[in-house]
């Protein structure tokens, strides 16, 4: 999943991530003590950005995997191959990262199937090792520097499951990342867009928050992410009017749930920006 920091300001290598809730500090402490970290929060709140930025700061390598219903054990552990008549073994991302001792990032871990989680559980416990039944029972031990960070979306997201308690307990440091307060979100957008129209961008953030609240109480089916407020500011910057940008970024998506849903959101947009 791409996130806010991915969109860097053109021509500059400056960081676009804003650590507004001191997550870096917590992650540092966890890293020092080798306590695995779990980041919990709805989509588009900057979970992946946080991890990427942290890894960059630590000058470490990042091995990442995005979980879905289709993720198989073999993606994680590896598979046998047949080259020139010889059976070999292609290492999966988990085995590789354990051997190399880098940071492993497990994105949306609660979208994974039970059998996949089972193999993970084996590697994540105190022994930090995995037995490769796929490769003649070879035992892989993780290097000391091996560190794991995982993220989960709240259960209300489609395709997510409750994480089994034994897996949860492997991540004793838990960071909650929610949508930031309005002024912070504005600062985040500022890092991505050079010429900001302050009043319109602030209204855009307010609009996004209004829709997020409606989605939180299930009055709407979708809640806009920080990515979308950044997109809104970018459209404004390139000369699209505020009302048009709001419709394009925030409004039109709701038409997939029918006219009435679309109309409700459109009403809010019109009352904020006019036409």
């Amino acid at each position, binding site marked *: 999943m791409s996130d806010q920091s991915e969109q860097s300001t053109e021509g500059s290598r400056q960081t676009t991530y804003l650590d507004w809730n001191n997550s870096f500090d917590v992650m540092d402490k966890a890293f020092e003590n080798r306590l695995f970290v779990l980041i919990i929060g709805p989509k588009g709140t900057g979970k992946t950005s946080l991890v990427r930025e942290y890894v960059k700061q630590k000058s470490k390598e990042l091995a990442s995997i995005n979980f879905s*219903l289709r993720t198989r054990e073999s993606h994680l552990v590896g598979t*046998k*191959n*047949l080259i020139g008549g010889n*059976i070999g073994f292609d290492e999966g991302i988990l085995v590789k990262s354990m051997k190399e001792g880098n940071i492993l990032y497990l994105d949306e871990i609660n979208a994974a*199937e039970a059998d996949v989680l089972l193999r993970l559980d084996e590697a994540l416990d105190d022994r930090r090792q995995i037995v490769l039944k*796929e490769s003649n029972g070879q035992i892989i031990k993780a290097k000391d520097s091996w560190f794991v960070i995982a993220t989960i979306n709240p*259960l*209300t997201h*489609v*395709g997510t499951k409750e994480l089994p308690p034994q897996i949860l307990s492997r991540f004793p440091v838990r960071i909650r990342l929610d949508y930031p307060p309005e002024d912070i979100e504005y600062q985040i957008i500022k890092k991505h867009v050079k010429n900001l129209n302050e009043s319109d961008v602030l*209204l855009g953030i*307010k609009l996004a928050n*209004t829709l997020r*609240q*409606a989605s939180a*109480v*299930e*009055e709407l089916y979708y809640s806009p992410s920080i990515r979308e407020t950044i997109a809104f500011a970018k459209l404004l910057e390139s000369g699209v009017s505020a*009302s048009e940008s709001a419709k394009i970024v925030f409004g039109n998506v709701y038409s997939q749930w*029918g*006219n*009435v849903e*679309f*109309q*409700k959101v*459109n*009403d*809010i*947009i*019109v*009352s*904020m*920006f*006019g*036409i």
Partner: protein
Amino acid sequence: MQSLQLRNDVLIDIATFLVRRWSGTENITVEFSKIKHSETRLKEKRVLLIPNDQYYGNDFQKYRQYRTSIWYEAMRLKHCKKILSNDHAYGFILNTIETRRIELLGIKIWKGMVEELIFNYTNMWLSRNNLSSIFGKARLVEAFYQYFLFGDIKGEMQPSQFNKVVKAVELAKHVLDEAVKKDHNTMWIESKIPEILKILDLDALISIPLSVPLKGPGLAITPNDFTKAMKQVTKSRKDDFSKFDSKNVLEGKTVIDEFKIIKTENKKNEKKGLNTKSIGIQIPDPSNVDETKIYDQDLINNLKAKFKEWKTGWKEYHFFVGDEFDDEAYLEGYERQFISDLKKSIKTHIVILLDHSSSIADQQIDYKKATLALCEVLAFLKIKFSVYAFNTTKRQVMCWLIKPEDLKWNNSCAKRLAQIPANGGTPLAEVYDKMYPILHSSKPDIFLTLTDGEPSDPFAARSMVKSIKSTGIKMVAIGVGRDTPNATIIATNLKYLGFERTLGVSRLKDIPKKVLNVLGGN
């Protein structure tokens, strides 16, 4: 009793959403009420709107005024600490100043409302009474209202009286400025009301007559009158409203698209063919019922999470088929399928009948919570369904339409469910007889009855079940009992009535799961 008011359903659905979002307050209920002025009851978290036909103008103009009035009520909810009655001078003056305050605070964020507010002001100005038609001290209060909001008065008054009004308005404007600048609330403004009353030389409790919009054939307003009035209104409010396009104010370009969509929705929802009323099924009158009482959000969320995979349409099953997995053979190209995906979705069309006889009276809130959660989940899963309920009202067996098949589940449906009292016996045969034409024409796959007792006439009920079954509809019944043995007895008795499938349930919260399992297994 009323005919199908689907138009109001869509309007209430949108109005509820808008009030909650504009005000940022959850659990607000919005309803149309036969009152003279729209009002907000802060403690009850209720907004009462006047029926649309009480506004002046054509349908579109009425819609615009209705929409602005929702905005004002939402702003009141957000910014007012208390709302007094308009019946007395004290409350009337406080509310007048508050109207301006909430409006100034509101348009800081909702800038797109400016043109609609001007349109509304123009209509308000046109519909205000001439001062010469108001007698006694109330005239002073009305003059204060007009001069404060519109910068002018309609008609004439004695110079000495007018001076008082000017002075009082000056003070009121000063109070308003300070309140907005220093973020003072309703209580602070209220503390200044006695001073204003003193200038006007008024008793706080004098009655204020109701000012209702003037309507009638002789009072047609020409576009010219309107433009003139609009100029008059905007002249005094130049500083408050940012730039606006007067053509837009007249034509309502900002809201014309949404009005068109509502009209289309309305047409879509118009009942085609069978009229329910003509066959003895009624729709409950819209009333002031708080449907949030029967919302059990935990139960609804639980169910939604549980049945989520039905919504995505995919559930992965792991089958053990064939021989033990042989990796070498697999690598050599011997492929045998070992993971299968099954698509699970429900295309069933279901009609649900809810028993509201007196036997469920003592647990009717929980019963309604469970049945409402069921409807929410069915809507969430996009299953085609309609809901009916029966009870006895004024010694007559009534069959109520809660949700027609072609209407989306919304607040109005929940309200209808909330307002039906549990009363009377269980005359299943009579109710089935009333519903027969609808069942015959709409041909649902399943007709599900939720009941907690024996039908009044089992023989007649059995014969009705038989004739409905003969039309190809699967008859299912769920017996609701107080405990497991009781539920089992009811379910067994229902089986004797000829239902194809009967289930018993003793925990009300299990009702939705049972119904969904019936659907899943169909």
